């Protein structure tokens, strides 16, 4: 192991002469027309950051409004705020977050390829994403949408007075962006693996993104067609979702959740991948139960297609449908539990260090476990009758999406930051941010479980006064969380210019991405690597070196 290069001094000449950031030129044109998966990943990261802060600003205003029972904004503004928050965070941040940034950057590096299979398609996917993003922002600026991100009919098709069709078009377009990404990842994983990179030598990150891609490719088109149907229904006043026109609103819910429940796994599976990279690296141990972790990802992506109606337990589905979908929802909890146990077991008898990526990873395991366990509550038929559409559900999916996925995103961002930029981030600032995010998150969302059980409903701009105390806790937590999210923006920005040079492998990690210089050259490897060993071959630390 070449752990001696931590200072990075020997690498500097390499950095200066030949890497993907400079090799193709530094003009705007060279970036906007690039086909390099790493550059496209950077484009995605920058645009996602913008959307993350747009969605975050809406969240801040929502929490501000909920400090008082009477609310601060008018209901119409509030309804637009949570719709904006939902649409932007789900489709413009969470779904593309890890796949399109880290996945784009790392999958070719991890499998020893020079690029994705279809580089032009990859760039097209980014342009689709941007076009859709501008459309969404345009719809918001000219008046907004008040349907909630779920677009339930017949409210969205006939009653809402917002710019619903524009928003539908934006989501429609961003859906194709994610289909193209998924297609690219699937073909790349199948066809571009380096010699010796067998399926069971793939890092779990690649497996997770592969499982995610399968969902993207198979579920997203159903969303696209559903939204198209709603848009036509709204424009032409004919459609099959409105009972007044002879249709059925439950058909919409079935179609919508057929995409949107698997989409939850699009949002969390790549996070599993990131955690499975970080935990072995900082525990200096191979991942416990590699094959179980891998196959649980695949199981989740398959079973994920058969649980959608658990969103509809009180919507008027039949008793038998309820019984079946609840059972399947319990079944899908098992592979998630397997992962948590395997990560925990990986820590056993390791040499654990607590750098920022590891703090995020441990935070992820904790928060995801809480989110997953409360998933058992809402998958429970009877219990769901009491808490569905309350803040209990809101808290549950934020534990998964924010506590889980956003923690994983930040963990991955810090872990691969040296690889992407060639610089180290300031460790202590990063640890402070990780802790702030963990505690701020719990303070924000744990009270919402209690609020939900008490009966505080979702999407209420005003609420009965007896709920105020817990809401104040939640809003206070949100401000801590906001500080935690803004901090990395500054210190990571600083490190771009002032951070220490990283060297090719600052964490002494295994994996092909660490075998090439940081930042990597345009075609990743000077010579196509040959793989001879399974992943995560971390050896016990030699004692003297630690002390």
């Amino acid at each position, binding site marked *: 192991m070449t752990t001696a290069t931590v200072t990075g001094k020997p690498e500097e000449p390499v950095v200066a002469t030949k890497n993907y950031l400079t090799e193709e030129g530094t003009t705007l044109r060279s970036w906007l027309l690039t086909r390099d998966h790493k550059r496209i990943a950077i484009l995605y990261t920058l645009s996602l950051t913008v959307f993350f802060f747009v969605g975050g600003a809406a969240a801040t205003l929502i929490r501000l409004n909920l400090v008082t029972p009477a609310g601060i904004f008018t209901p119409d503004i509030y309804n637009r705020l949570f719709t904006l928050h939902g649409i932007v965070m789900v489709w413009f941040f969470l779904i593309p977050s890890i796949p399109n940034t880290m996945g784009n950057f790392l999958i070719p590096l991890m499998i020893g390829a020079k690029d994705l299979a279809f*580089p032009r398609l990859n760039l097209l996917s980014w342009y689709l994403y941007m076009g859709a993003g501008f459309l969404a922002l345009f719809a918001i600026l000219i008046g907004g949408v008040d349907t909630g991100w779920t677009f339930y009919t017949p409210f969205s098709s006939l009653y809402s007075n917002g710019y619903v069709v524009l928003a539908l078009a934006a989501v429609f377009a961003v859906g194709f962006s994610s289909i193209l990404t998924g297609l690219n990842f699937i073909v790349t994983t199948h066809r*571009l693996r380096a010699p010796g990179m067998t399926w069971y030598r793939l890092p779990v990150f690649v497996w997770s993104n592969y499982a995610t891609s399968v969902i993207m490719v198979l579920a997203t088109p159903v969303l696209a*067609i559903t939204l198209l149907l709603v848009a036509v229904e709204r424009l032409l006043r004919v459609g099959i979702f409105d009972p007044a026109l002879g249709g059925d609103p439950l058909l919409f819910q079935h179609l919508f959740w057929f995409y949107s429940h698997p989409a939850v796994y699009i949002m969390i599976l790549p996070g599993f991948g990131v955690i499975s990279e970080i935990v072995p690296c900082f525990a200096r141990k191979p991942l416990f139960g590699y094959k179980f972790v891998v196959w649980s990802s695949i199981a989740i992506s398959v079973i994920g297609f058969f649980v959608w109606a658990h969103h509809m337990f009180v919507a008027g589905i039949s008793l038998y449908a309820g019984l079946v979908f609840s059972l399947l929802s319990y079944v899908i909890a098992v592979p998630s539990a397997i992962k948590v146990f395997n990560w925990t077991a990986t820590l056993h008898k390791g040499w654990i260090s607590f750098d920022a990526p590891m703090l995020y990873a441990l935070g992820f395991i904790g928060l995801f476990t809480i989110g997953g366990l409360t998933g058992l509550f809402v998958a429970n038929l009877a219990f769901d009758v009491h808490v569905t559409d309350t803040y209990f559900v809101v808290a549950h999916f934020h534990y998964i999406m924010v506590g889980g996925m956003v923690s994983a995103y930040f963990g991955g961002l810090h872990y691969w930051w040296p690889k992407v930029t060639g610089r180290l981030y300031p460790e202590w600032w990063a640890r402070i941010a990780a802790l702030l995010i963990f505690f701020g998150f719990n303070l924000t969302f744990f009270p919402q479980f209690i609020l939900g059980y008490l009966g505080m409903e979702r999407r209420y701009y005003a609420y009965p006064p007896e709920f105020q105390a817990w809401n104040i806790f939640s809003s206070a937590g949100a401000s801590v969380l906001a500080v935690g999210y803004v901090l990395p923006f500054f210190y990571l920005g600083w490190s771009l210019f002032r951070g220490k040079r990283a060297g090719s492998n600052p964490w002494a990690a295994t994996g092909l991405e660490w075998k090439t210089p940081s930042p990597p050259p345009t075609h990743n490897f000077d010579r196509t690597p040959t793989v001879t060993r399974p992943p995560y071959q971390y050896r016990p630390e030699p004692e003297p070196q630690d002390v």
Partner: protein
Amino acid sequence: MSDATPHPQPVPRPEPQYATMDQQAEAASFGMWVFLATEVLFFGGMLLAYAWLRASHPDGVAEAGRHTKVVIGSVNTLVLLTSSLTMAWAVHAAEHGRRTALTRLLAVTALLGLLFLGLKGYEYHGEWAEHLVPGLNFQENGPHARTIELFYFLYFLLTGIHGIHVTIGIVLIAVMAVRARRGAFSAGYFTPVEVTGLYWHFVDIVWIFLYPLIYLAGRSGP
């Protein structure tokens, strides 16, 4: 065929991410298969809506189905099936490096596609004249008017989106024909033709599903 070209065959080099042309060809055709999987689900959503409509209003759907123009639909089915044949033949010609045959067969395929679109347009025209276009000029009375409107809504959506796919297919095939004429393909390299062929067959198969659902719904059974 008489197209033994004297000048040397072009030998395209793979894009930088591929080691060999074979690898690139495999990736391209695998990519098309994955894309077609997406497409299946895309049409699947609409077909589910159709299934729901037919299950909840069987009589209305049957009546609506009897309004459809089964002769045009059947001729169009024949046209598309023939075009699939010429497409398959074109890929075969490409495999054996027969340039003229390839160009001609692609042109015939594209023309058959155009014929399909023309007939479809004629059919739409008739439906417009009969006031069967939901949301724009739909006029129908009788007990099943609502269902007939929904049926025609799905009909226009399904055939419209299928029509867009046919149009894209025609453009792709035309591009392939031009490239074939210029000698871009050889027995060693014809991946784009093969991939276009996959796409065209898919468009054809979708129609095979649509045809009975639309035209035979009210005409089958007792």
